[in-house]
């Protein structure tokens, strides 16, 4: 990659990071450039890598005339703006909703049913004791968290109330784990930018 491209990226990175000091025109400038470049790139990419090769080529070069229906059906979406022809837009939308509902149903069966089955773990077996503890923990977490989310009646009974409270603590632990991982992830992204500034932009030799 030529150095002037790296230099532009380095200056843009520093420009964006000036927000850490305070809101300023340099940050605003690079923020707008970023949004503009992103939108422009997306538009160019869709035209050259999706519409032309996946639709234009089969229709106009390979003579697959039936691809014209993709334009007609896709175009029907825009009839929502016509009061007289809006029913045609609704037809396409309903078809899309039906398709997505079918896919979601299939996804639920294949993704979540195996996970529900896997959550039924033996708490007594001839395996190592730590596995028993692990399975017991899964069982307790599953039951208590489910009782926390049981809203059909008020949590008056001490057993239900206690279970829901334990469930809330379990949820807090899970949120803590997710938040900790989020911090780790955000740090990794920052480290990547800092490494770019040091080793690509400033050209320091990596150790």
């Amino acid at each position: 990659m030529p150095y002037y491209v790296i230099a532009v990226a380095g200056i843009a990175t520093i420009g964006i990071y000036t927000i850490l000091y305070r809101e300023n025109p340099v940050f605003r400038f690079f923020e707008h450039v970023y949004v503009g470049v992103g939108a422009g790139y997306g538009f160019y990419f869709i035209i050259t890598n999706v519409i032309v090769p996946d639709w234009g080529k089969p229709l106009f070069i390979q003579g697959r005339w039936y691809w014209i229906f993709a334009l007609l059906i896709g175009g029907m979406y825009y009839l929502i703006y016509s009061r007289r022809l809006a029913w045609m837009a609704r037809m396409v939308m309903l078809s899309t909703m039906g398709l997505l509902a079918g896919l979601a149903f299939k996804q639920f069966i294949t993704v979540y049913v195996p996970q529900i089955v896997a959550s039924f773990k033996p708490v007594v077996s001839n395996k190592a004791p730590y596995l028993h503890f692990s399975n017991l923990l899964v069982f307790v977490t599953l039951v208590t968290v489910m009782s926390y989310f049981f809203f059909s009646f008020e949590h008056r009974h001490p057993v239900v109330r206690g279970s829901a409270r334990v469930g809330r603590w379990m949820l807090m632990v899970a949120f803590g784990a997710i938040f900790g991982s989020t911090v780790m992830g955000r740090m990794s992204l920052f480290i990547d930018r800092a490494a770019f500034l040091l080793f690509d932009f400033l050209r320091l030799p990596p150790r």
Partner: protein
Amino acid sequence: MTGERAGAERTRHIIFAALWVLILATLIWPVPTRMKPSPAVRSLHNTIETLPRNKLVILSVSWDVGTRGENGPQTSALINHLFKGGHRFAIFGWVFQPGPMLAEQIADSLAPRYGKHYGTDWVNWGFKAGGSPMLQALAKDIPGVIVEDLNHTSITRIPAMAGVKDWHDIGMVIDITGTSSLDSWVAFWQGVYGVPLGYACTGVMGPESFPYLDAGQIKGVVNGLVGSAEYEVLVGVSGQGQQRMTSQSAAHVLIIVLIIAGNLLMLRDRKRRAKAGG
């Protein structure tokens, strides 16, 4: 600006400055860290080790520049392993458009080390629109859906694609992702055809991946930058994952110290207010 607000602003600046100094210093002077691969990472590594050589591996690169800091080193570690093991693979994007190009840069930079060549050892399918319905169609007719590679060469003329027709010819799919693309692979490939799935995700998504691992839907997980560092240890290469572990650990220590300090200061203020009130 009030005195209290100015103080908060100053504290914020001190924290940012400390983080910058710490990260830059540890990148320039890293300390070698000993990584112990977790069972989830080891499991993915072992699955790839036992894959048949005659089958193609799909690297689903569902990431772009926004998560490059995590997904980039993961992609690099996995490509290192595939090159080293002599597995043919296809780089494929269907969520973010720049993904295949970013992964191609990584493959191009690593290929000379292993004497690998584009077209014979790997292929880049580029980006394909269509989401989940496209994935369903892909399982049944790969050349019919992909048609051309990233350079607009017909997929049937690429040696790495020899004999690849449908899901039967795929040894494994590895989803390297910064978004929720795994569900589609599980729903339309692993759940239907039983194609083994590997998963490399950003740190924020890591904890949510374990139900999939527990249910046997994925063979292993490379979680965030630390996951790529562990994977590099197993492959026996020194990459960005390991090189950046000092900075990652130092930043975590700083944040833990700041959380403790913040809580102590809060307790002190609370005590002072209680005293003043009483």
